[in-house]
């Protein structure tokens, strides 16, 4: 979930319990304030009534609310009590329901006679008043919170803008692109710090990359030249007459070893180049068409081994990858399926939009299938196979997150690759 949505969400989650607490508190506070007002008027009325009675005056209804009198009874001295407030529900015949009342009962003495006076006030209006007040305040709070959230979102978008700019620059960063990444000054200290740190990191990475590239280039030079010299010496030496078969065999053994070393060196170089991201450029490769081309280029060999090629490849299916790596990948796959095939065997090629399958008959694997893609393991009875071709294949697949799987059904070896590019959007 993105930053701004999460913050908004958290704000809402915190606001809700606060709302509830405030609503409840408001209810109690307002209720008690209103009830206190009712009680106050009951007491004033009571005092007026009692004063009038004590002075034997007529109870003047102009300033006394007589309707609030519920009962006036004579009581014994024993029943004399202090002022008492209570809530009472009274059944109203007209409304056919119970209605809430506030009652004050009090006692007083006139000429040694004790009387109890009970007074009541209806709370119906008060309750609706409370409800209205709470609703209004609640709605105000809601509006306040919503406008706060909206303003807050806008503010956040504008405050975090530099952060998103930095993110975008990081996303677009390509390691072999020598251009420095430029960060502009922001008004926020932390973002400036972030930009400064990221900038340093990028410089360091670019430097390391450049140094690594140089290192690889230097190694290539160093290793290949001595190999050239050995090879050259052998070639000149072998022109001499008077070499016995034994001499020739020994010499060729050296040359074959140079051949192996050369291949290993070439492979290691490719490995490092891939790992150092030196094959960054990609293009759309019609892999069906490319494989058909490779088959054609190798047709002499295929014919020699009397292999039947069953071509179920579909063209116009594209995979996005580096052109050179594509050639290396598919050439090695195809040549592998020819080299480790049996005479008179079959190669079946199948492709779909995002998928390639190569099945071939072949000699049994001498090793655990899981080790097929491991480096430097001999694959089958074909001697001298250093087995680097498939490891290169695996490394290229790993680079692009292609899913490559090997399986075996009886005598048939199957390699399939899912290119996993269908769901990609720009």
């Amino acid at each position: 979930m993105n930053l701004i949505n999460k913050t908004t969400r958290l704000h809402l989650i915190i606001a809700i319990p606060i709302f509830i607490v405030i609503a409840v508190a408001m209810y109690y506070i307002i209720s008690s304030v209103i009830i206190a007002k009712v009680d106050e008027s009951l007491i004033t009325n009571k005092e007026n009534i009692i004063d009038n009675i004590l002075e034997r005056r007529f109870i003047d209804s102009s300033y006394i609310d007589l309707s609030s009198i519920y009962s006036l009874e004579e009581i014994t001295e024993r029943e004399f009590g202090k002022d008492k407030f209570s809530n009472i529900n009274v059944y109203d015949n007209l409304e056919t329901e119970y209605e809430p009342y506030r009652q004050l009962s009090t006692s007083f003495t006139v000429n040694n006679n004790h009387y109890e006076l009970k007074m009541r006030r209806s709370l119906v209006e008060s309750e609706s008043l409370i409800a209205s007040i709470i609703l209004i305040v609640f709605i105000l709070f809601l509006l306040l919170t919503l406008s706060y959230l909206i303003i807050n979102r806008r503010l956040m978008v504008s405050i975090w803008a530099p952060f998103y700019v930095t993110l975008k620059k990081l996303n677009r960063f390509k390691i072999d692109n020598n251009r420095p990444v430029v960060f502009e000054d922001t008004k926020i200290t932390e973002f400036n710090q972030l930009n400064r740190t990221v900038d340093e990191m990028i410089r360091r990475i670019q430097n390391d990359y450049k140094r690594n590239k140089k290192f690889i280039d230097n190694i290539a030079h160093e290793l290949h030249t001595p190999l050239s010299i050995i090879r050259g010496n052998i070639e000149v030496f072998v022109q001499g007459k008077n070499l016995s078969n034994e001499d020739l065999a020994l010499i060729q053994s050296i040359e074959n070893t140079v051949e192996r070393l050369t291949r290993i060196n070439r492979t290691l170089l490719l490995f490092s180049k891939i790992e150092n991201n030196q094959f960054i450029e990609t293009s759309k490769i019609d892999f069906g068409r490319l494989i058909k081309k490779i088959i054609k280029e190798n047709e002499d060999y295929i014919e020699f081994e009397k292999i039947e090629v069953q071509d179920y490849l579909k063209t116009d299916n594209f995979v996005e990858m580096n052109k050179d790596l594509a050639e290396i990948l598919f050439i090695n796959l195809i040549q592998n399926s020819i080299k480790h095939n049996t005479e008179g065997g079959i190669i079946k090629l199948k492709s779909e939009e995002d998928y390639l399958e190569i099945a071939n008959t072949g000699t049994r694997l001498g090793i655990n299938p899981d080790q097929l893609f491991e480096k430097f393991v001999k694959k089958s009875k074909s001697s001298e196979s250093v087995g680097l071709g498939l490891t290169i294949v695996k490394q290229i697949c790993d680079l692009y997150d292609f899913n490559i799987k090997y399986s075996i059904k009886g005598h048939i070896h199957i390699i399939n690759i899912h290119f996993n590019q269908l769901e990609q959007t720009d």
Partner: protein
Amino acid sequence: MKLLIVEDELELANLIIKYLQTEKFICDVSYNYRDASEKIYLYDYDCVIVDITLPDGSGMELIREIKEKKSDAGIIIISAKNSIDDKIAGLDLGSDDYITKPFHLSELNARIKSLLRRKHTQGSNTIEVNELKINLDSRSIFIHNELVEFRPKEYDILLYFILNKDKVINKNSIMEYFWGDNTYSSGSYDFIYAQVKNIRKKLLDNNCKDYLITIYGVGYIFDTK
């Protein structure tokens, strides 16, 4: 034909010269940029073979100098890095070919000869060896003036032999032809043997002398002596 070899590794340079001299080339050598630059200025060469990584300068610069002199010399780049960028840059500057270390000397020889042929053809572009005549433009082979069918790869191999005639050719160098730069595991020798056998049969069937001789363990020689 006069060649200039520019290579800073002494041993390698001397090996190249030794091999090429047996091909009747006249060879000069420079072990560094300065010397090469001087020689290019002073003399005319038919072909210059340049290692682009030199201790005191860039081989690419030498190529530029050769071109500036309006020289007609063929230029072959030697490099230890199989770098596409270098290849393209070199071709752009005007080099004619690019060969990666470690190479077989027979390979270098074949390329020099092909290059010189391309540059010095007057009339038809053919190679004649006794009863064999090869037309390089039409890629056809005539034995006793009769056209003989050879498959494309067979033609390539036979041409390679003829360009390196009377020299022992290592079977590994023939392998490189077939399997190319982009393979990382070893190839099959059986196939190569079969190809050479086919070529030999075609030659013999058409009354050609038996030039293709197998050298035990090592490879072949196209022996015209």
